[in-house]
């Protein structure tokens, strides 16, 4: 067994553009996916995640670079000779075959004996909770059930790597959430490497061991869900994963752990942690997540206790929105900047304005660790 289950080494894929010229779908992507890992490719549509997956499956060949599966260079190996199997977004079930025949197809191609095929197909159907459905046709099954058949059909081959192309995209929200948990449990149970393509950041955060965020053909950041969310390496990742507030300014001072940024359009200064290398005077973007700010009244200040921390500012409440678990507040930060702040509703009350009223003059504070300083792009 080699070091990585799948490795993309400087892979480029260009397609001819129907209007002339070329489109770069994947731009010098390098990825290393470990054995038994649940690895997600996350990004908006057209970011190159599906093309990357299709190159691992063998449906497309890289324009340059190399793909290794279990250490072996794949070159132009056709799909039927690769030790990977795919679950398609459209499920791609064979409508003219029964569920049993669908699942057995891959084993038949391997020349597995009739007896063993029957045993393995039944085990696979049981694993996806479709026992006894073998004699039905795909059309007779619900979307969720068809999705399970597609999964069983791929897993019955015991691939080294399972490739999943937005497999839950066609399901409704509730079923999707259920299937997310099931898929994750299944992956842990079978111990197969999963490469999972999705544009749904919540799905990726919930299920993955690691995530590669892609945009416009580039791999921007690779890391565990917590790293991607808490320490994005660029503005796109901070924006695409979860929700955030952006503020703009210039680096005023740097010490090893913190950076002081003077914001444009106001006299205010923010202390935050640098995510990248910075120099004094550099234009930067500041990202602060809405759930990582605190609103408080001026009582501590009045009684003479100065908040012994930076990043305390007077603000005004613009409006509040009650959404059950949270209250979402828009505040006027000054200098024409509005920020989103989310607070948990930890009091049970029928007064939706119990916390704040529009127009109220209050204070906001954010811990420096929650203020992320990112390089300004473009």
């Amino acid at each position, binding site marked *: 067994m080699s070091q990585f289950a799948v490795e993309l080494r400087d892979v480029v894929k260009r397609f001819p553009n129907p209007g002339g010229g070329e489109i770069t779908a994947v731009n010098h992507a390098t990825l290393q996916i470990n054995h038994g890992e649940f690895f997600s490719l996350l990004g908006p549509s057209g970011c190159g995640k599906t093309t990357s997956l299709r190159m691992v499956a063998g449906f497309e060949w890289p324009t340059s670079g190399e793909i290794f599966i279990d250490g072996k260079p794949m070159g132009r190996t056709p799909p*039927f000779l690769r030790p990977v*199997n795919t679950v398609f977004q459209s499920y791609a079930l064979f409508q003219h075959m029964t569920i049993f025949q669908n699942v057995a197809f891959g084993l038949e191609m391997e020349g597995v004996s009739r007896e063993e095929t029957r045993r393995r197909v039944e085990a696979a159907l049981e694993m996806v909770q479709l026992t006894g459905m073998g004699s039905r046709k795909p059309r007779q099954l619900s979307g969720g059930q068809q999705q399970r058949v597609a999964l069983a059909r791929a897993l019955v081959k015991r691939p080294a790597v399972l490739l999943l192309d937005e497999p839950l995209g066609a399901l409704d929200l509730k079923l999707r959430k259920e299937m997310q948990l099931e898929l994750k449990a299944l992956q842990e149970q079978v111990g197969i490497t999963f490469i999972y393509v999705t544009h749904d950041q919540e799905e990726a955060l919930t299920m993955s061991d690691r995530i590669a965020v892609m945009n416009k053909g580039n791999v921007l950041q690779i890391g565990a869900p917590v790293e991607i969310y808490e320490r994005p390496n660029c503005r796109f990742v901070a924006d695409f994963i979860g929700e955030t507030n952006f503020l703009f300014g210039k680096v005023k001072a740097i010490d090893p752990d913190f950076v002081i940024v003077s914001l444009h359009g106001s006299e205010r200064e923010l202390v935050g942690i640098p995510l990248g290398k910075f120099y004094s005077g550099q234009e930067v973007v500041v990202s602060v997540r809405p759930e990582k700010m605190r609103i408080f009244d001026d009582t501590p200040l009045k009684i003479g206790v100065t908040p012994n921390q930076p990043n305390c500012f007077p603000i005004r409440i613009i409006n509040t929105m009650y959404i059950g678990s949270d209250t979402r507040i828009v505040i006027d930060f000054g200098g024409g900047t509005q920020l989103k702040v989310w607070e948990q509703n930890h009091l049970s009350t029928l007064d939706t304005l119990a916390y704040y009223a529009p127009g109220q003059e209050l204070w906001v504070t954010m811990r420096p660790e929650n203020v992320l300083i990112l390089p300004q792009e473009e």
Partner: protein
Amino acid sequence: MSEKKPALWLRIYALLAYAYIYFPILILIIFSFNTQKINVRWEGFTLQWYKVLFNDQNVILATRNTLIIAFTSTIISTVIGTLAALALQRYRFPGYGAAESLLYVPVIIPEVVMGISLLAFFASIGLTLGLGTITLSHIAFNIPFVTLVVRARLHGFDKSIEEAAMDLGANELTTFWRVTLPTIMPGVLSGALLAFTLSLDDYVITYFTAGPGSTTLPLRIFSMVRFAVTPEVNALSTLWVLTVFIVLLIGQIAQRSQSPQQTR
């Protein structure tokens, strides 16, 4: 949809339209059992014209020729037409537009022109006119029809099922036989059926490309009715209508047993 009944006048109108189409055929069938030799007045029931028909060596020979031509041309044109449809569906290449348009031109070209051109072509390459040249001609005019029908079926064909087959270990050939062909089979059958019926009753092109001893049923009937429509011709036509009807019925049943592909 609600199960609303159409208005009375619509129903009468529809009935008239059907009568307009089927009444002449009905007359023809009735008169094939008439004892009178002229198709004017009903005299009495007889099966003698069918007896005459079955003893007519020329008719039997023409039937045999027609069936040979129809079966051969149907099989060959279905294979070629289906492959053409698949190619047009799957690939984009320089000259694609021209390839697509030129394939369908024979559908709208006047049959007389096609007949004459085929005759001239066969003469110029020195082919003896006969069953062979008729069959070649029928293959030629059937290919576009098969392609049209199969392409209609391929519209919305989910090519990820082919990728899935290959992903599961099937090579290109196995994928075609086990997945692609069964999926498009209803379209291929419809195409074949159309080709078969077109070949059965073609007169114009067959007329130009026929030689001695290769008379087909349409040619035979035309020569029989040169002077008068005899009850024997009525009997022959009746049997023919019945044959086409059965072929269509078989086609319908075959189509229905094939599960229609789910469109997504």
